[in-house]
């Protein structure tokens, strides 16, 4: 297909603004999917995606419309996957920017719109859900036009649900989005914008060919990593895989690599032909670094090998997932895992539990810290209990938070941000009613419950997005928790000095409630170094007997005892103390009580 008959575009939208529904309608209209095959969210193949209504992995579908080849590159809509979004956008020349007619512009809309603008994409603004009774398409269109510097008349008004206006969207893609402008005769170059893993065929790379052409059985090379392989099969999705002999400049498709190690082929890298290699890779490749960490432990320590295998398999499709073995005195053998953000963490955990049927204990998440011990070298710490007691300097990651709220909530949002060590950056009115606030915050302050707090304090109206802006020094201390005199590594936390006392106090009180009475007194302490800052005691149990037991009752009493025994086995032992798994999550739920 000549490049002037090709259009590559993606759809960007805030969660629930109708991206997947619009994609479904496009597939229907272009007959890529028959009515019989049609189901909701065709592109979202993972159960989790369908349930949460979000897209985790990018996919690309080729459809035909009025003699043009349109490639729809689906993108994840969440901040945690910004890197994947930006790779996907780089594979396109245009983007549909979809906004809900009732809700208007949201933080993710902004973040993704800015990403699209940075990537020089032609933006086709679309107001969706005009069929909703509470829809205000004119206001949404005005806001959207203002955001991207367009006129409201240029904004398409559609209902992806009913199909109204969707044909015009396809026409607008052909009219407004520029065709690809690569050099068909230059040495071949393709951007890997996503990959997945097939257990029989190895790594499958999703690519956008920029220059030249690729053909089946050709020896290829990933330029940044230097990985060499042969293209076992080329093809495209429509929406199922269709093989083809070649992929030419401007086209989007897949390459089956046969590689068995997903880390050998990174998203963002450039593929070229070994026979006639390109001189330089396409710009934009960078290594993504996880910033949020948590310990994952099997509830039943016998499941450790299953957890290891499951992480290995998840990693095949999720290059951003980081994990390394971790041994906790309290929780036994597990893994310290690194995630791009909170949603990423939650998704990994849910996939492990659902797809691999694992029962997991996840410790409170923490961020990465950079520390410099006295007379030592800077190093990165991923586990609070690894923070040395004596440090010369500690740095923690900061974010720039972008929050959009109706103006009446500005005060409460500012208050929340101030409580969270936030530094005010900017306030700007998007319309008469809605305000865009930016703040700089330590990432640590948002990993626990910031989002929930923001949502509840603004009655659900706030939308939130963030960008990492680097490490900054902080007055941070390590608070240890001792149960029965033994430090519990899994409960250690790193916190700003000013909050240490209150947090230690709250945690100790919470644990006192969570840890059941034992056969002896159990002191629970919070300490900074050797200084105890809070203490509570779980008083010893005085009675624990089965009332009576005679000949007719032995079986039932034995079963009761066996149940009691099984209950004990589910507990984790810290020294002599049996601690229920829930107690380790106490740290997670503290903030509801925090003023």
């Amino acid at each position, binding site marked *: 297909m000549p490049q002037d008959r090709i259009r590559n575009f993606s759809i960007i939208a805030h969660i629930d603004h109708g991206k997947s529904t619009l994609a479904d309608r496009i597939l229907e209209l272009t007959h890529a999917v028959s009515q019989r095959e049609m189901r909701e969210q065709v592109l979202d193949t993972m159960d989790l995606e369908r349930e949460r209504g979000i897209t985790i992995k990018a996919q690309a579908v080729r459809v035909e419309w009025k003699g043009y080849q349109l490639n729809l590159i689906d993108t994840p809509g969440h901040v945690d996957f910004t890197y994947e979004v930006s790779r996907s956008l780089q594979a396109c020349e245009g983007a549909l920017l979809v906004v809900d007619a009732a809700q208007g512009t949201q933080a993710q809309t902004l973040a993704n719109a800015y990403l699209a603008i940075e990537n020089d994409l032609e933006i086709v603004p679309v107001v969706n859900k005009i069929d909703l009774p509470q829809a205000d398409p004119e206001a949404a269109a005005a806001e959207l036009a203002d955001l991207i510097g367009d006129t409201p008349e240029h904004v398409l008004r559609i209902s992806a649900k009913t199909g109204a206006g969707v044909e015009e969207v396809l026409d607008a893609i052909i009219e407004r989005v520029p065709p690809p402008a690569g050099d068909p005769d230059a040495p071949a170059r393709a951007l890997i914008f996503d990959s997945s893993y097939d257990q029989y065929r190895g790594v499958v790379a999703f690519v956008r060919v920029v220059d030249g052409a690729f053909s089946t059985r050709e020896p290829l090379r990933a330029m940044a990593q230097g990985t060499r392989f042969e293209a076992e099969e080329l093809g495209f999705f429509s929406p199922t895989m269709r093989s083809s002999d070649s992929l030419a400049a401007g086209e989007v498709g897949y390459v089956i690599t046969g590689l068995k190690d997903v880390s050998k082929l990174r998203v963002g890298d450039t593929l070229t032909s070994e026979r006639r290699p390109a001189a330089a890779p396409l710009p934009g490749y960078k290594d993504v670094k996880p910033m949020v960490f948590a310990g994952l432990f099997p509830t039943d320590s016998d499941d450790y090998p299953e957890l290891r295998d499951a992480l290995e398999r998840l990693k095949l499709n999720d290059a951003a997932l980081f994990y390394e073995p971790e041994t906790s005195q309290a929780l036994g053998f597990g893994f310290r895992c690194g995630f791009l953000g909170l949603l990423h963490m939650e998704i990994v955990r849910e996939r492990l539990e659902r797809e691999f049927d694992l029962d997991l204990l996840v410790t409170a998440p923490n961020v990465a810290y950079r520390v410099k011990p006295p007379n030592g070298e800077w190093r990165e710490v991923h586990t609070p209990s690894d923070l040395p007691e004596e440090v010369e300097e500690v740095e923690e990651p900061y974010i720039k938070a972008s929050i959009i709220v109706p103006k009446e909530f500005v005060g409460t949002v500012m208050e929340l941000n101030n409580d969270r060590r936030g530094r005010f950056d900017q306030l700007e009115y998007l319309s008469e009613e809605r305000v865009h606030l930016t703040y700089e915050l330590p990432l640590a302050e948002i990993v626990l419950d910031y989002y929930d707090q923001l949502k509840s304090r603004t009655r659900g109206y706030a939308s939130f997005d963030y960008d990492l802006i680097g490490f900054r020094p902080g007055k941070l201390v390590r608070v240890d928790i001792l149960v029965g005199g033994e430090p519990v590594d899994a409960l250690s936390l790193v916190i700003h000095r000013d909050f240490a006392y209150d947090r230690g106090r709250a945690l100790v009180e919470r644990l006192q409630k969570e840890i059941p009475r034992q*056969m*002896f007194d159990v002191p629970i302490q919070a300490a900074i170094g050797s200084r105890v800052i809070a203490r509570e005691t779980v008083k010893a*149990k*005085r*009675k*624990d*007997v*089965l*009332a*009576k*037991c*005679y*000949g*007719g*009752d*032995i*079986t039932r*009493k*034995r079963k009761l*005892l*066996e149940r*009691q*025994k099984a209950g*004990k086995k589910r507990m984790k032992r810290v020294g*002599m103390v049996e601690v229920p798994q829930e107690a380790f999550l106490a740290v997670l739920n503290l903030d509801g009580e925090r003023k």
Partner: protein
Amino acid sequence: MSERARHLYVHLPFCAHRCGYCDFVTLVGRRDQHAAYVEAVLAELALELPLLAPEVETVFLGGGTPTFTEPDALAELLVSLPLAEEVTVEANPETVTPALAVLLREHGVNRVSLGAQSFRPHLLAVLERVAQPDTVRRAFYHLRDAGFDNISLDLIYGIPGQSTPDLEADLDCALALGPEHLSCYELEAKPGTRFTHTHGAELARQADAMESYFELVVERLTGAQYRWYETANFCRTGTSADGRDLRSRHNLAYWRGRDYLGVGIGAVSTIEGRRWRNAPRLAAYTAALARNERPPREHEPLPIDVRQRERVMLGLRLDEPLELAGLADAIDEEALARLTALGLADVMPAPAGPPRVALTPRGRLLGGGVTAELLV
């Protein structure tokens, strides 16, 4: 060689009234069926006679209310049972007339377990007991008058509405009668029963008080020279026992893991690693035995590890040390060391033979948790 059972349990299910908290197999009234039931019980006993040793040590008639059984039928049963060194009958106070006391005594019964439960009228009412405090006292003296020198009283604590002074008063009233034996149980209200439904909130309050009640019971009774020989059982000892061992021999057999044969509806037998329970249905029971067939039963195999666990669970309820011989596989050595360090268990090296373990008084108050910990 086959060990035959030396202990016989006979279940007599009939009651005048079913108390709200009761979860035993009981049947209200049915006076016209008592004789037929006793006949069926004797038929079952005849069928199972080969399982019994020629010399039976103990016989226990439990219920229900065995003394509610029609006197002729009860007498017929008693004369037909094998002779034994200890023959116990459970009795409700209101059924114990002078005549009944004599009947029991004349038919070889030498121990009576009297279900007093409480001496406080408002608590007896909550338990739906027919007897009044004085009914209990009168029954006790009728038994004494008939020559019984081994009487046990049952008390229940943790009754909705009960206070610590109520419990103290109950213990005082019981001690004032000077019974040879006392059983003190915490009220077990089964979830889903009418009783639990009626008394829900108050039961929760009682559950919180149960710790101090149990301590109070143990302190008060051991202070009155009673031996706390089993978690919930006490007997006179030393001079007040005239040199007799007043522990319940029949129940000791359960706690020591001996075999026993149980006959009657709902009765459980455990013999040579097999356990079975007769179905608790009267009609099916009498019908089967009328045909001289075994009644419907539920069988439970007892593999060796289960038997070992039961030995530990039951043995640790006693104040006498448990011999660890043959139980090594059931016991977690590490836990034993931990519990010993906590002052909850004592390991006693026997002069000859394998070591024995006993719980300390505090360990016995925590017996359930300690046992759960100790078992592998």
